[in-house]
């Protein structure tokens, strides 16, 4: 079994309300000196097969479901 880690991040310039509001919440809880908080979504997909095959299928999963190209970039690492 291999694990494919998919990181879905917001494209540069796209507003990140979750990150911004988390930053605010952390400040309200008394944490100082934070410059920025960015939200990232990670999926770990456990599956069998050859590495190149896994990469191809996970790439397809990203296109079909895991990311929306309008706002998302994604990266895939197979471990």
């Amino acid at each position, binding site marked *: 079994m291999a694990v494919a880690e998919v990181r879905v991040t917001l494209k540069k310039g*796209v*507003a990140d*309300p979750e990150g*911004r509001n988390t930053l605010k919440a952390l400040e309200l809880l008394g944490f100082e000196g934070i410059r920025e908080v960015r939200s990232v979504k990670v999926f770990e997909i456990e599956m069998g097969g050859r590495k190149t095959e896994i990469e191809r299928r996970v790439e397809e999963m990203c296109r079909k*479901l895991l990311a929306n190209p*309008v706002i998302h970039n994604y990266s895939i690492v197979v471990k």
Partner: protein
Amino acid sequence: MKVSDARVCVLRIEGTNCEEESYRCFKRLGAKPEKVHLKQLTGTDVTSDERRSLSDYQLLVFPGGFSAGDYVRAGAIFAARLRSRLSKDLVEFVREGKPVLGICNGFQILVEAGLLPAMSGVMSEAPEAVLGTNDSARFECRPTLLKNVNRGNCVFTSRIPGDRICQIPSAHAEGKLMFPLDSANRIIKELEENDQIVFKYVDPDGELAGYPWCPNGSIASIAGLCSPEGNVFGLMPHPERVFFRYTHPDWTRHPDGNGDGRAVFESVLEYISKKI
């Protein structure tokens, strides 16, 4: 076709939760709505009695809710399941001019499935827009005011006068309409030219609104869009929640008349009775 013969498919999967009130709006107006599980259309785990075909219906409705928990992204899982099993039927349904309505989560599904804004064909290969997390990063359940800016293309708003401000409430966490940053301006212009923008959020004076009257930070304060042909319509606010006057937030001040959402359902049934 007579309204009383119009069959309405109110489509649901796990996590859909506004189907009952959507169903009732059509029932009250004399149409024949039915709550249908997606598996009844795809033929999975169902008996022959329960099997349905999309072509049996004149109107398809995606009600609000949190389909499949909205865990990946609002509407994305429902949309992916639709595309993998029903895309041919759907494309045909839309090509025939039959109307499709998506409310709230339904709008998110239509966008994720590529059925809206559908600027490159009935069902675009990849999503052309996204309904992202509200600027406030919170779920926002609040009264919203909508102005009908459509010039006549959308078949769901023909009975709503252009200058009319409708009070149709919103309740969502992911309703911020966004387009790719580099082409957003061009797309907005194109949508306007195609007469695809239907509702915009306004304040009580009728001016384009920022937060909280626009609860999510949508581009150009857009609350609802239709396809270039006008028969696919999605909006974040909930017209089915204001079918009657007495579910308006301030109805005790103005108790008379219909609810502002009713005209959406009347418009589309009128379209069906005239055109299908």
